[in-house]
Protein backbone atom coordinates (compact mmCIF):
# COMPACT_ATOMS: atom_id res chain seq x y z
CA UNK A 1 0.00 0.00 0.00
CA UNK A 2 1.15 3.45 -0.86
CA UNK A 3 1.93 5.42 2.26
CA UNK A 4 1.90 8.84 0.67
CA UNK A 5 -1.22 10.89 1.13
CA UNK A 6 -3.30 10.77 -2.03
CA UNK A 7 -6.14 12.90 -3.34
CA UNK A 8 -8.65 10.50 -1.81
CA UNK A 9 -7.12 10.94 1.66
CA UNK A 10 -6.94 14.69 1.28
CA UNK A 11 -10.62 14.91 0.35
CA UNK A 12 -11.50 12.80 3.37
CA UNK A 13 -9.35 15.07 5.49
CA UNK A 14 -11.17 18.17 4.27
CA UNK A 15 -14.52 16.53 4.82
CA UNK A 16 -13.84 15.60 8.42
CA UNK A 17 -12.12 18.87 9.21
CA UNK A 18 -15.18 20.78 8.12
CA UNK A 19 -17.44 18.49 10.20
CA UNK A 20 -15.09 18.82 13.17
CA UNK A 21 -14.90 22.56 12.89
CA UNK A 22 -18.57 23.31 12.23
CA UNK A 23 -19.60 21.09 15.12
CA UNK A 24 -17.10 22.73 17.45
CA UNK A 25 -18.36 26.15 16.42
CA UNK A 26 -21.95 25.13 17.11
CA UNK A 27 -20.90 24.71 20.73
CA UNK A 28 -18.42 27.56 20.89
CA UNK A 29 -20.44 30.37 19.40
CA UNK A 30 -23.38 30.46 21.83
CA UNK A 31 -21.09 29.87 24.79
CA UNK A 32 -18.49 32.34 23.64
CA UNK A 33 -20.91 35.18 24.23
CA UNK A 34 -20.45 34.78 27.94
CA UNK A 35 -16.82 35.60 28.72
CA UNK A 36 -16.90 33.82 32.05
CA UNK A 37 -17.25 30.56 30.19
CA UNK A 38 -14.16 31.22 28.09
CA UNK A 39 -11.91 28.96 30.17
CA UNK A 40 -14.15 25.93 29.63
CA UNK A 41 -14.83 26.63 25.97
CA UNK A 42 -11.97 24.47 24.77
CA UNK A 43 -13.05 21.64 27.01
CA UNK A 44 -16.62 21.74 25.73
CA UNK A 45 -15.35 21.88 22.15
CA UNK A 46 -13.32 18.71 22.54
CA UNK A 47 -16.19 17.03 24.36
CA UNK A 48 -18.48 17.26 21.34
CA UNK A 49 -15.95 16.92 18.53
CA UNK A 50 -14.93 13.51 19.79
CA UNK A 51 -17.78 12.18 17.68
CA UNK A 52 -16.54 13.23 14.23
CA UNK A 53 -12.94 12.65 15.25
CA UNK A 54 -13.48 9.01 16.18
CA UNK A 55 -15.28 8.50 12.89
CA UNK A 56 -12.38 10.23 11.15
CA UNK A 57 -9.94 7.76 12.73
CA UNK A 58 -11.74 4.87 11.09
CA UNK A 59 -10.65 6.35 7.78
CA UNK A 60 -7.10 7.28 8.71
CA UNK A 61 -4.54 4.77 7.74
CA UNK A 62 -1.68 7.04 6.84
CA UNK A 63 0.59 9.25 8.87
CA UNK A 64 0.07 12.97 8.47
CA UNK A 65 -3.68 13.24 8.27
CA UNK A 66 -4.15 14.00 11.95
CA UNK A 67 -1.33 16.54 11.87
CA UNK A 68 -2.84 18.29 8.90
CA UNK A 69 -6.25 18.33 10.55
CA UNK A 70 -4.82 20.12 13.58
CA UNK A 71 -3.04 22.68 11.41
CA UNK A 72 -6.13 23.29 9.31
CA UNK A 73 -8.30 23.66 12.40
CA UNK A 74 -5.85 26.18 13.81
CA UNK A 75 -5.94 28.07 10.54
CA UNK A 76 -9.73 28.15 10.41
CA UNK A 77 -9.82 29.23 14.03
CA UNK A 78 -7.47 32.06 13.21
CA UNK A 79 -9.63 33.17 10.32
CA UNK A 80 -12.62 33.47 12.63
CA UNK A 81 -10.62 35.89 14.76
CA UNK A 82 -9.27 33.80 17.60
CA UNK A 83 -5.63 34.44 16.79
CA UNK A 84 -3.24 32.31 14.80
CA UNK A 85 -1.47 30.48 17.60
CA UNK A 86 -3.52 27.41 16.76
CA UNK A 87 -1.39 26.87 13.66
CA UNK A 88 2.01 26.29 15.30
CA UNK A 89 0.43 24.48 18.23
CA UNK A 90 -1.58 22.44 15.74
CA UNK A 91 1.66 21.42 14.10
CA UNK A 92 3.18 20.35 17.43
CA UNK A 93 0.24 18.60 19.03
CA UNK A 94 -1.12 17.28 15.77
CA UNK A 95 2.23 15.67 15.11
CA UNK A 96 2.42 14.23 18.62
CA UNK A 97 -1.13 12.94 18.43
CA UNK A 98 -0.42 11.47 15.02
CA UNK A 99 2.65 9.67 16.36
CA UNK A 100 0.73 8.22 19.29
CA UNK A 101 -2.01 7.04 16.95
CA UNK A 102 0.45 5.63 14.49
CA UNK A 103 2.00 3.45 17.17
CA UNK A 104 -1.46 1.98 17.68
CA UNK A 105 -1.75 1.57 13.92
CA UNK A 106 -4.73 3.96 14.10
CA UNK A 107 -6.71 1.09 15.55
CA UNK A 108 -5.85 0.70 19.24
CA UNK A 109 -8.74 1.96 21.35
CA UNK A 110 -6.60 3.27 24.21
CA UNK A 111 -4.20 5.05 21.92
CA UNK A 112 -6.99 6.61 19.93
CA UNK A 113 -8.32 8.26 23.09
CA UNK A 114 -4.91 9.53 24.17
CA UNK A 115 -4.02 10.50 20.63
CA UNK A 116 -7.22 12.50 20.35
CA UNK A 117 -6.59 14.18 23.70
CA UNK A 118 -3.08 15.21 22.67
CA UNK A 119 -4.31 16.35 19.26
CA UNK A 120 -6.95 18.47 21.02
CA UNK A 121 -4.28 20.49 22.79
CA UNK A 122 -3.96 22.63 19.66
CA UNK A 123 -6.93 24.44 21.22
CA UNK A 124 -4.57 25.85 23.83
CA UNK A 125 -3.39 28.11 21.04
CA UNK A 126 -6.61 30.06 21.23
CA UNK A 127 -5.88 30.85 24.87
CA UNK A 128 -2.38 32.16 24.31
CA UNK A 129 -3.42 35.71 23.44
CA UNK A 130 -5.64 35.79 26.51
CA UNK A 131 -2.94 34.67 28.90
CA UNK A 132 0.30 35.92 27.52
CA UNK A 133 -0.83 39.03 25.74
CA UNK A 134 -3.18 40.17 28.43
CA UNK A 135 -0.34 40.95 30.83
CA UNK A 136 1.20 43.24 28.24
CA UNK A 137 -1.89 45.11 27.57
CA UNK A 138 -3.64 44.80 30.81
CA UNK A 139 -3.98 48.53 31.05
CA UNK A 140 -5.46 48.82 27.62
CA UNK A 141 -7.70 45.87 28.37
CA UNK A 142 -9.01 47.74 31.35
CA UNK A 143 -9.41 50.81 29.21
CA UNK A 144 -11.50 49.02 26.69
CA UNK A 145 -13.59 46.87 29.00
CA UNK A 146 -13.62 48.96 32.11
CA UNK A 147 -11.51 48.24 35.15
CA UNK A 148 -14.25 46.26 36.76
CA UNK A 149 -14.59 43.90 33.83
CA UNK A 150 -10.86 43.50 33.41
CA UNK A 151 -10.53 42.64 37.06
CA UNK A 152 -13.30 40.09 36.79
CA UNK A 153 -11.73 38.43 33.80
CA UNK A 154 -8.38 38.38 35.53
CA UNK A 155 -10.05 36.88 38.56
CA UNK A 156 -11.50 34.09 36.45
CA UNK A 157 -8.29 33.59 34.58
CA UNK A 158 -5.20 34.03 36.73
CA UNK A 159 -1.98 32.89 35.12
CA UNK A 160 -1.85 29.54 36.88
CA UNK A 161 -5.32 28.67 35.64
CA UNK A 162 -3.94 27.83 32.23
CA UNK A 163 -2.96 24.54 33.80
CA UNK A 164 -6.62 23.94 34.53
CA UNK A 165 -7.56 24.91 30.98
CA UNK A 166 -5.09 22.40 29.59
CA UNK A 167 -6.21 19.71 32.00
CA UNK A 168 -9.83 20.47 31.17
CA UNK A 169 -9.23 20.09 27.46
CA UNK A 170 -7.31 16.89 27.98
CA UNK A 171 -9.82 15.25 30.28
CA UNK A 172 -12.84 16.34 28.27
CA UNK A 173 -11.14 15.04 25.16
CA UNK A 174 -10.83 11.62 26.77
CA UNK A 175 -14.51 11.72 27.73
CA UNK A 176 -15.48 13.12 24.33
CA UNK A 177 -13.48 10.39 22.67
CA UNK A 178 -15.34 7.79 24.69
CA UNK A 179 -18.68 9.34 23.75
CA UNK A 180 -17.57 9.33 20.14
CA UNK A 181 -16.59 5.70 20.34
CA UNK A 182 -19.86 4.78 22.00
CA UNK A 183 -21.92 6.56 19.35
CA UNK A 184 -19.82 5.00 16.66
CA UNK A 185 -20.63 1.60 18.04
CA UNK A 186 -24.27 2.46 18.55
CA UNK A 187 -24.88 3.75 15.05
CA UNK A 188 -22.12 3.34 12.56
CA UNK A 189 -20.91 -0.13 13.38
CA UNK A 190 -24.47 -1.43 13.54
CA UNK A 191 -25.27 0.31 10.31
CA UNK A 192 -22.25 -1.21 8.67
CA UNK A 193 -20.80 2.14 7.66
CA UNK A 194 -17.43 1.61 9.29
Amino acid at each position, binding site marked *: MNNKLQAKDL*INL*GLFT*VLYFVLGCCVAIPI*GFVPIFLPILGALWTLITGIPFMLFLTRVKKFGMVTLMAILSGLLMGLTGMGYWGVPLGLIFGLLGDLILKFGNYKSAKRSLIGYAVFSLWMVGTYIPMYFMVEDSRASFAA*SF*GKEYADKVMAVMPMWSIVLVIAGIFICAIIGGMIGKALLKKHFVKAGIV
Partner: protein
Amino acid sequence: MDEILSATVDSRNGIVLDPRTKLFMLITITTLMFSTSNDGIMNIVKPILSLIPFALILSEHKFKTAGKYAVLYAVCFVLERLALNVWSGMISFLILAATSIMTRFAPGIMTGAYLISSTSVSEFISAMERMHVTEKIIIPLSVIFRFFPTIKEEYQAIRDAMKMRNIRFGGKNPFLMIEYRLIPLMVSVIKIGDELSAAALTRGLGAPVRRTNVCEIGFHVQDFSAIVVCFACFILFFLHQYIVF
Protein backbone atom coordinates in the same frame (compact mmCIF):
# COMPACT_ATOMS: atom_id res chain seq x y z
CA MET B 1 -25.36 35.79 7.43
CA ASP B 2 -27.53 33.34 5.57
CA GLU B 3 -27.84 35.31 2.39
CA ILE B 4 -24.13 35.82 2.22
CA LEU B 5 -23.18 32.21 2.67
CA SER B 6 -25.65 30.98 0.13
CA ALA B 7 -24.78 33.40 -2.61
CA THR B 8 -21.83 32.91 -4.87
CA VAL B 9 -20.73 33.90 -8.28
CA ASP B 10 -24.34 33.97 -9.37
CA SER B 11 -24.68 37.63 -8.69
CA ARG B 12 -21.11 38.59 -9.04
CA ASN B 13 -21.15 42.29 -9.22
CA GLY B 14 -19.08 44.59 -7.16
CA ILE B 15 -15.39 45.07 -6.68
CA VAL B 16 -13.27 42.28 -8.11
CA LEU B 17 -10.42 41.51 -5.77
CA ASP B 18 -7.70 38.92 -5.91
CA PRO B 19 -8.33 36.09 -3.41
CA ARG B 20 -4.95 36.87 -1.83
CA THR B 21 -6.08 40.43 -1.17
CA LYS B 22 -9.26 39.17 0.43
CA LEU B 23 -7.27 36.79 2.57
CA PHE B 24 -4.93 39.55 3.66
CA MET B 25 -7.87 41.77 4.55
CA LEU B 26 -9.39 38.96 6.55
CA ILE B 27 -6.15 38.35 8.41
CA THR B 28 -5.77 42.06 9.11
CA ILE B 29 -9.28 42.38 10.45
CA THR B 30 -9.22 39.22 12.53
CA THR B 31 -5.84 40.07 14.01
CA LEU B 32 -6.40 43.73 14.79
CA MET B 33 -10.02 43.48 15.85
CA PHE B 34 -9.20 40.85 18.36
CA SER B 35 -6.25 42.66 19.85
CA THR B 36 -7.42 43.98 23.13
CA SER B 37 -5.80 47.36 22.78
CA ASN B 38 -8.27 50.10 22.35
CA ASP B 39 -6.12 53.16 22.99
CA GLY B 40 -5.90 56.36 21.10
CA ILE B 41 -5.56 55.83 17.41
CA MET B 42 -7.03 52.30 17.60
CA ASN B 43 -10.32 53.96 18.41
CA ILE B 44 -10.27 55.16 14.84
CA VAL B 45 -8.57 52.18 13.20
CA LYS B 46 -11.11 49.66 14.43
CA PRO B 47 -14.21 51.42 13.13
CA ILE B 48 -12.41 51.94 9.84
CA LEU B 49 -11.61 48.25 9.62
CA SER B 50 -15.20 47.41 10.44
CA LEU B 51 -16.23 49.47 7.43
CA ILE B 52 -14.30 47.19 5.07
CA PRO B 53 -16.83 44.33 5.07
CA PHE B 54 -19.61 46.91 4.88
CA ALA B 55 -18.13 48.38 1.72
CA LEU B 56 -17.51 44.94 0.22
CA ILE B 57 -21.04 43.71 0.83
CA LEU B 58 -22.43 46.99 -0.41
CA SER B 59 -20.46 46.65 -3.62
CA GLU B 60 -22.15 43.30 -4.17
CA HIS B 61 -25.51 45.11 -4.09
CA LYS B 62 -26.60 43.20 -1.02
CA PHE B 63 -28.04 46.31 0.55
CA LYS B 64 -30.17 44.54 3.11
CA THR B 65 -27.32 42.51 4.55
CA ALA B 66 -24.99 45.49 4.51
CA GLY B 67 -27.61 47.59 6.28
CA LYS B 68 -28.23 44.96 8.95
CA TYR B 69 -24.54 44.64 9.60
CA ALA B 70 -23.99 48.40 9.78
CA VAL B 71 -26.85 48.90 12.23
CA LEU B 72 -25.75 45.99 14.37
CA TYR B 73 -22.18 47.18 14.52
CA ALA B 74 -23.13 50.79 15.19
CA VAL B 75 -25.52 49.88 18.00
CA CYS B 76 -22.95 47.62 19.64
CA PHE B 77 -20.24 50.20 19.24
CA VAL B 78 -22.32 52.94 20.85
CA LEU B 79 -23.47 50.65 23.66
CA GLU B 80 -19.89 49.66 24.28
CA ARG B 81 -18.83 53.30 24.59
CA LEU B 82 -21.73 54.06 26.89
CA ALA B 83 -21.05 51.05 29.05
CA LEU B 84 -17.40 52.00 29.33
CA ASN B 85 -17.74 55.68 30.01
CA VAL B 86 -21.19 56.38 31.38
CA TRP B 87 -22.75 53.35 32.98
CA SER B 88 -21.29 51.14 35.62
CA GLY B 89 -22.00 48.07 37.67
CA MET B 90 -23.57 44.82 36.60
CA ILE B 91 -25.49 46.26 33.64
CA SER B 92 -22.43 47.76 32.08
CA PHE B 93 -20.60 44.50 32.63
CA LEU B 94 -23.24 42.43 30.88
CA ILE B 95 -23.59 44.85 28.01
CA LEU B 96 -19.85 44.97 27.58
CA ALA B 97 -19.61 41.23 27.50
CA ALA B 98 -22.15 40.92 24.71
CA THR B 99 -21.20 43.94 22.65
CA SER B 100 -17.46 43.41 22.83
CA ILE B 101 -17.94 39.98 21.31
CA MET B 102 -20.06 41.46 18.53
CA THR B 103 -17.73 44.32 17.71
CA ARG B 104 -14.74 42.02 17.71
CA PHE B 105 -16.13 39.12 15.76
CA ALA B 106 -18.76 40.54 13.45
CA PRO B 107 -16.37 42.30 11.03
CA GLY B 108 -14.17 39.21 10.73
CA ILE B 109 -17.09 36.88 10.22
CA MET B 110 -18.63 39.16 7.60
CA THR B 111 -15.34 39.44 5.75
CA GLY B 112 -14.91 35.67 5.95
CA ALA B 113 -18.40 35.13 4.57
CA TYR B 114 -17.61 37.59 1.81
CA LEU B 115 -14.41 35.73 1.00
CA ILE B 116 -16.28 32.45 0.69
CA SER B 117 -19.21 33.83 -1.26
CA SER B 118 -17.22 35.92 -3.71
CA THR B 119 -14.42 33.46 -4.45
CA SER B 120 -14.85 30.41 -6.61
CA VAL B 121 -13.10 27.24 -5.58
CA SER B 122 -10.86 27.40 -8.62
CA GLU B 123 -9.85 31.01 -7.95
CA PHE B 124 -9.03 29.98 -4.44
CA ILE B 125 -6.92 27.03 -5.58
CA SER B 126 -5.18 29.23 -8.09
CA ALA B 127 -4.36 31.85 -5.46
CA MET B 128 -3.05 29.27 -3.03
CA GLU B 129 -0.87 27.73 -5.71
CA ARG B 130 0.67 31.08 -6.49
CA MET B 131 1.50 31.40 -2.82
CA HIS B 132 3.23 28.02 -3.15
CA VAL B 133 1.01 26.35 -0.58
CA THR B 134 1.32 22.58 -0.70
CA GLU B 135 -1.38 20.45 -2.30
CA LYS B 136 -1.83 18.78 1.09
CA ILE B 137 -3.35 21.99 2.38
CA ILE B 138 -5.02 23.18 -0.84
CA ILE B 139 -7.15 20.11 -1.52
CA PRO B 140 -8.60 19.84 2.01
CA LEU B 141 -9.19 23.59 2.12
CA SER B 142 -11.08 23.56 -1.15
CA VAL B 143 -13.16 20.64 0.09
CA ILE B 144 -13.91 22.67 3.23
CA PHE B 145 -15.01 25.53 0.98
CA ARG B 146 -17.28 23.26 -0.99
CA PHE B 147 -18.80 21.67 2.08
CA PHE B 148 -19.91 24.69 4.06
CA PRO B 149 -23.01 25.10 1.88
CA THR B 150 -23.55 21.34 1.78
CA ILE B 151 -23.62 21.09 5.55
CA LYS B 152 -26.07 23.93 5.68
CA GLU B 153 -28.31 22.26 3.10
CA GLU B 154 -28.21 18.90 4.82
CA TYR B 155 -28.78 20.40 8.24
CA GLN B 156 -31.87 22.24 7.03
CA ALA B 157 -33.27 19.04 5.56
CA ILE B 158 -32.77 17.23 8.84
CA ARG B 159 -34.33 20.09 10.78
CA ASP B 160 -37.39 19.91 8.50
CA ALA B 161 -37.63 16.18 8.99
CA MET B 162 -37.54 16.61 12.75
CA LYS B 163 -40.12 19.35 12.61
CA MET B 164 -42.39 17.08 10.64
CA ARG B 165 -41.99 14.24 13.05
CA ASN B 166 -42.95 16.59 15.81
CA ILE B 167 -39.86 16.11 17.91
CA ARG B 168 -41.44 15.25 21.17
CA PHE B 169 -38.81 12.65 21.45
CA GLY B 170 -35.50 13.76 22.76
CA GLY B 171 -37.05 17.03 23.82
CA LYS B 172 -36.23 16.36 27.40
CA ASN B 173 -32.87 14.82 26.79
CA PRO B 174 -30.45 17.32 25.27
CA PHE B 175 -27.97 14.62 24.47
CA LEU B 176 -30.51 12.77 22.34
CA MET B 177 -31.29 16.03 20.56
CA ILE B 178 -27.67 16.32 19.55
CA GLU B 179 -27.48 12.68 18.59
CA TYR B 180 -30.58 12.80 16.40
CA ARG B 181 -29.28 15.78 14.53
CA LEU B 182 -25.69 14.74 14.31
CA ILE B 183 -25.88 11.16 13.18
CA PRO B 184 -27.98 11.69 10.03
CA LEU B 185 -25.89 14.78 9.24
CA MET B 186 -22.64 12.88 9.47
CA VAL B 187 -24.00 9.94 7.52
CA SER B 188 -25.16 12.05 4.62
CA VAL B 189 -22.10 14.32 4.56
CA ILE B 190 -19.82 11.31 4.48
CA LYS B 191 -21.87 9.71 1.73
CA ILE B 192 -21.71 12.86 -0.35
CA GLY B 193 -18.00 13.07 0.37
CA ASP B 194 -17.36 9.54 -0.83
CA GLU B 195 -19.23 10.10 -4.06
CA LEU B 196 -17.49 13.42 -4.51
CA SER B 197 -14.07 11.78 -4.13
CA ALA B 198 -14.93 9.18 -6.73
CA ALA B 199 -16.18 11.81 -9.17
CA ALA B 200 -13.15 14.06 -8.63
CA LEU B 201 -10.69 11.21 -9.05
CA THR B 202 -12.22 10.12 -12.34
CA ARG B 203 -11.55 13.65 -13.50
CA GLY B 204 -7.89 13.54 -12.75
CA LEU B 205 -7.65 15.21 -9.34
CA GLY B 206 -4.25 14.51 -7.87
CA ALA B 207 -2.47 14.00 -11.19
CA PRO B 208 1.24 14.65 -10.74
CA VAL B 209 1.34 17.49 -13.23
CA ARG B 210 1.27 21.23 -12.79
CA ARG B 211 -2.39 22.14 -12.59
CA THR B 212 -3.67 24.71 -15.09
CA ASN B 213 -5.82 27.52 -13.76
CA VAL B 214 -8.18 29.00 -16.27
CA CYS B 215 -9.57 31.68 -14.00
CA GLU B 216 -7.93 35.07 -14.09
CA ILE B 217 -6.52 36.27 -10.84
CA GLY B 218 -4.01 39.01 -10.29
CA PHE B 219 -3.45 42.30 -8.57
CA HIS B 220 -5.06 45.48 -9.82
CA VAL B 221 -5.45 49.03 -8.57
CA GLN B 222 -8.21 48.06 -6.15
CA ASP B 223 -6.02 45.30 -4.70
CA PHE B 224 -3.11 47.64 -4.15
CA SER B 225 -5.30 50.20 -2.43
CA ALA B 226 -6.82 47.55 -0.16
CA ILE B 227 -3.38 46.23 0.72
CA VAL B 228 -2.10 49.72 1.47
CA VAL B 229 -5.04 50.32 3.83
CA CYS B 230 -4.35 47.05 5.61
CA PHE B 231 -0.66 47.81 5.98
CA ALA B 232 -1.46 51.27 7.28
CA CYS B 233 -3.72 49.74 9.90
CA PHE B 234 -1.00 47.36 10.99
CA ILE B 235 1.54 50.16 11.25
CA LEU B 236 -0.85 52.27 13.28
CA PHE B 237 -1.44 49.27 15.50
CA PHE B 238 2.24 48.76 16.20
CA LEU B 239 2.80 52.44 16.80
CA HIS B 240 -0.40 53.19 18.64
CA GLN B 241 1.30 53.54 21.99
CA TYR B 242 3.43 56.35 20.65
CA ILE B 243 0.68 58.22 18.92
CA VAL B 244 -0.89 60.57 21.34
CA PHE B 245 -3.52 63.08 20.58
